[in-house]
């Protein structure tokens, strides 16, 4: 109940933040623009709409995850709102996990809203989207879970500016993970190969979660990949959150 109280309060704080609506406004704008883009396109116009719309949900979801996550713990300490919470029967891990779950709830509502808009758009423009579109949103949520966990981790020990730089780096590297692997395999130097492998395994691979190509081309649902993405995402997220808890547990509130 205490974790749920923390999560719902975090959700309420997020949905009363005007910046969230600014980002959402842009996301809705890009979704609607995707319809206009098809008029300028030669070829399979439907695919272009789907591609732009899927990409917009992915990008703005990630932006909101980063924006909310980077200050989630830091802000509580800086504004001293954590003082009246942690002096109550709230363990440090409950605080971090409760705040995190509040963000996840916010992201889930935001993705669901954009998905609803996308489905309406598709239904009016083309047809009701196939199952792969919904599954790809599920794997996007897995990606956002992990990205938010990283942002939460950084916010336990650094300022929002530093945390945003770190999280952005993780986001970019996470999408280039397959390239790092490829680079490692092609490198002539053994030490470079080793370094690339270490980086590949230590840093997240966000491409694992991407089913955008399958969704745009309306391919069958690759259940095996979905299963692997779920296992990878949940395990990695738990590990990162565990690290965040371990760091925050030893922090003195000055």
């Amino acid at each position, binding site marked *: 109940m205490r974790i749920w*109280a923390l999560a719902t309060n975090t959700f309420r704080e997020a949905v009363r933040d005007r910046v969230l609506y600014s980002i959402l406004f842009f996301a809705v704008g890009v979704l609607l623009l995707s319809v206009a883009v098809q008029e300028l396109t030669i070829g399979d116009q439907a695919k272009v709409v789907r591609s732009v719309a899927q990409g917009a949900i992915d990008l703005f979801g990630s932006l909101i995850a980063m924006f909310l996550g980077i200050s989630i713990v830091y802000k509580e300490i800086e504004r001293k*709102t954590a003082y009246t919470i942690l*002096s*109550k029967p709230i363990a440090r891990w409950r605080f971090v996990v409760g705040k995190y779950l509040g963000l996840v709830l916010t992201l889930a509502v935001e993705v669901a809203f954009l998905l609803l808009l996308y489905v309406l758009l598709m239904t009016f423009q083309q047809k009701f989207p196939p199952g792969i579109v919904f599954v790809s949103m599920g794997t996007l949520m897995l990606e956002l879970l992990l990205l938010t966990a990283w942002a939460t981790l950084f916010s336990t020990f650094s300022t929002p500016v530093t945390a945003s730089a770190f999280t952005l780096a993780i986001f970019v590297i996470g999408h280039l993970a397959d390239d790092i692997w490829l680079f490692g395999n092609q490198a002539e130097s053994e030490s470079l190969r080793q370094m690339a492998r270490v980086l590949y395994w230590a840093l997240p691979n966000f491409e694992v979660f991407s089913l955008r190509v399958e969704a745009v081309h309306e391919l069958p649902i690759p259940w095996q990949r979905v299963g692997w993405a779920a296992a990878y995402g949940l395990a990695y997220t738990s590990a990162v959150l565990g690290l965040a808890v371990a760091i925050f547990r030893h922090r003195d509130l000055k």
Partner: protein
Amino acid sequence: MASALSDPDIVVRTEGLRKVYRSGFWMRPVVGLEGLDLEVRRGEVFGIVGPNGAGKTTTIKILTGLQRATQGMAWILGKPYDQPETRLRMGFLPERPYFYEHLSARELLDFYGRLFDMPGPRRARRIAELLERVDLVRFADVPLRKYSKGMVQRVGVCQAIIHEPDLVILDEPMSGLDPLGRALVRDVIMEERARGATVCFSSHILSDVQELSDRVAIIVRGKLRGIGSVHQLIGDRVRHVDLTYAGEVAVPGTELRSDDATRTVRLAPAQVDQAVAAVVHGGGRVLELSPVRDSLESVLLDEVERARPVDDKRLGVL
């Protein structure tokens, strides 16, 4: 130790509490608290006084689980201070509290009530009671960002006692409040005591501490310099005597004020007989002799003076 821990009359107990902070680029150690031994008894109002940086807030932050002691141990209601469940029967108001500004007082108190696992109906009843008590019913649904400092402090008091705790800890609860706000906090402290709760508070306003506390701890430079009832700490000692007289007579002592007709001087108690005799023999008239007794403030200043290292005294550093 076991007997002391199981003693239901000891609500707070600290043993050799020490806190060392790391400060600056080189992480130099700074001692915030040095071997603090305290006992707060059930049902009493316990005041903690000391100058800025003495260790009052550090003590409170350790007791409330916001900081960890470098050494030593503390028990709250017989349980270790660093266990979250220990704080189930404790309420806390930090110094200059900050709350979620997007919430109204009612929403905020409901949130804090949920953190104590209070059932919904009990939360609603208690929130209504408290808002009525601190005269915030009219503003109950207004976001806190629109509140004045005094109103925020009133909400802060409410969140500290929402679950009717056995122990209430208040860090500088009167800080920055107007006389009405201070009177409200004083009343709440006495009401909590009357309910049977133990109240532990720190304050710079020594007259409030003197008036409200059953016992007081004086902390200076991280060390406990005195503990006991106000009477025990102050005693009956007469510190000075102020003599007001009329007449053109020179009397030794520190002059406090003078006009054409009268003069008031501050004397050490041993000087009084000699000064009175000088006035009478010089043809003057003694108008008033007022003994100035010790106060908590004078006792605290004495302790600060005693705790000053020799080098500070030589350089004139407070």
